């Protein structure tokens, strides 16, 4: 395969992924509103289009037409930069997550991942850490005390949960013996999902993912009742929409990461034994991946509308005194598994 074909295929894949992400994000917002309504015995938005399916477009249009207000006390360049960083991080992280097996098109073998790199997991961890800057800078540059509180909380929270997140991933890496997302998916043949082999690591990673994406019960940076929106209090119009978009895109990335690391990625258990043609195999794998991600996204929303917010000290207690030792325990557990069963 020459360089031009590689470029072409990459561009097509990037185009597809970015568009799928944007559409999923807008529908995720709609879905969130519907699920929250159902959980509270309401109906939710059902006016725009059939059952409200055009609601996301109405929302985007409304946000586009809003006035973009920058407070006088704000540091203007950084105030503008923050949502850009947030969006950049949210959309680039997805590049390394495989959403299907390799397929062959016109005689070329194309892996269904934008960048099949050897340090994929490290790349994701590094970029999601960058996401903290977006929120912290947004909080600082707004020149408002509520925003600053939000930003500070966010940095403290993300730092403390990044550690347990990293250590939970450690268990997965031990089993797969590689940082390549493809290899991690390969390692989870059949029902050998990491979620089943290392339940503690799965739970710690899941909880850390909630904290990383600023979702309830860990949404302290934006805590509406106490911080009036937190870091995005002073944002309006499309800059606000940028943060909104980034939050939901982060949710998708987190779900896709959990699926890849713990729920067998795009693998449908024992699908290779069914004797399907390569085309059907690829289609079912991709569908499996999307179903898994969708289920996790529903779980994210479901949790948000069930649990109250943690208090700040409880959050820190949980992060440092519970999640961190548990993730260390998980590494020992995985090491013991490898020692005993010689996996």
């Amino acid at each position: 395969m020459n360089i031009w074909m590689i470029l072409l295929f990459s561009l097509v894949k990037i185009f597809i992924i970015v568009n799928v992400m944007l559409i999923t994000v807008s529908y995720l917002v709609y879905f969130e509103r519907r699920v929250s309504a159902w959980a509270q015995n309401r109906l939710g938005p059902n006016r725009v289009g059939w059952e409200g399916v055009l609601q996301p477009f109405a929302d985007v249009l409304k946000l586009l037409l809003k006035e973009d207000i920058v407070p006088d006390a704000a540091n203007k360049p950084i105030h503008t930069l923050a949502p850009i960083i947030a969006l950049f991080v949210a959309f680039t992280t997805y590049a390394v997550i495989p959403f299907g097996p390799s397929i062959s098109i016109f005689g070329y073998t194309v892996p269904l991942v934008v960048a099949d790199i050897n340090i994929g997991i490290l790349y994701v961890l590094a970029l999601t850490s960058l996401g903290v800057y977006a929120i912290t800078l947004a909080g600082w540059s707004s020149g408002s005390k509520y925003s600053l509180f939000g930003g500070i909380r966010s940095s403290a929270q993300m730092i403390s949960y990044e550690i347990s997140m990293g250590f939970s991933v450690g268990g997965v890496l031990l089993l797969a013996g590689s940082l390549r997302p493809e290899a991690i998916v390969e390692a989870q043949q059949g029902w050998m999902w990491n979620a089943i082999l290392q339940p503690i690591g799965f739970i710690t990673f899941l909880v850390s993912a909630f904290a990383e994406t600023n979702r309830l019960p860990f949404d302290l940076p934006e805590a509406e009742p106490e911080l009036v929106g937190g870091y995005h209090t002073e944002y309006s119009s499309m800059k606000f929409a940028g943060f909104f978009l980034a939050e939901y895109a982060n949710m998708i990335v987190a779900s896709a990461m959990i699926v890849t690391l713990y729920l067998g990625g795009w693998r449908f258990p024992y699908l290779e034994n069914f004797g399907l043609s390569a085309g059907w195999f690829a289609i079912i794998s991709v569908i499996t991946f999307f179903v898994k991600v969708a289920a996790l996204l529903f779980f994210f929303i479901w949790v948000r509308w069930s649990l109250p917010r943690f208090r700040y000290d409880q959050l820190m207690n949980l992060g440092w005194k519970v999640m961190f030792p548990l993730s260390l325990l998980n590494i020992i557990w995985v090491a013991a598994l490898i020692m005993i069963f010689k996996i």
Partner: protein
Amino acid sequence: MAVKKREKDLTLLEKMYIPEIVKGLSLTMKNMFKPKFTMKYPEEKFIPPASYRGRPVLVMEENGEERCVACGLCSRVCPALAIEVQAAETEREKERYPVKFEINMLRCIFCGFCEEVCPEEAIVMSKDYELAFSHREDAIYGKDKLLTPVIQLKDRIEFLRSYK
């Protein structure tokens, strides 16, 4: 820092969060499949019970005449001064009838005093709650809009008789 003693300490299981979280999640999940409280309003209308105080209306007997004898008590008692009555004499048995009976729906506060004070059971609160006007003049309801056949107001009148 003084530590306040709790009434009941959490058990170990509760401190582990997970069983409690599962409990909370199952509760919201159960609620998702319950019938919805919200109505799809314009398509599906709320039918209020007899105790509902909607737009005040004048009772029209079967023979097409109003019950009102234009005593003016309703306009006297109305705290918002929304009712205007002008009496006139008539050959009929009741001797007086309102030539003009107007309720300004922009002023009405739906307190139901007029209904309570009426000696003839001639003005009652209906179930009509859809009141929207595009002009101030439209909001002044005259006799043509107020007169309502007695059959339509049956359950409200029964309700009044049982509680008055």
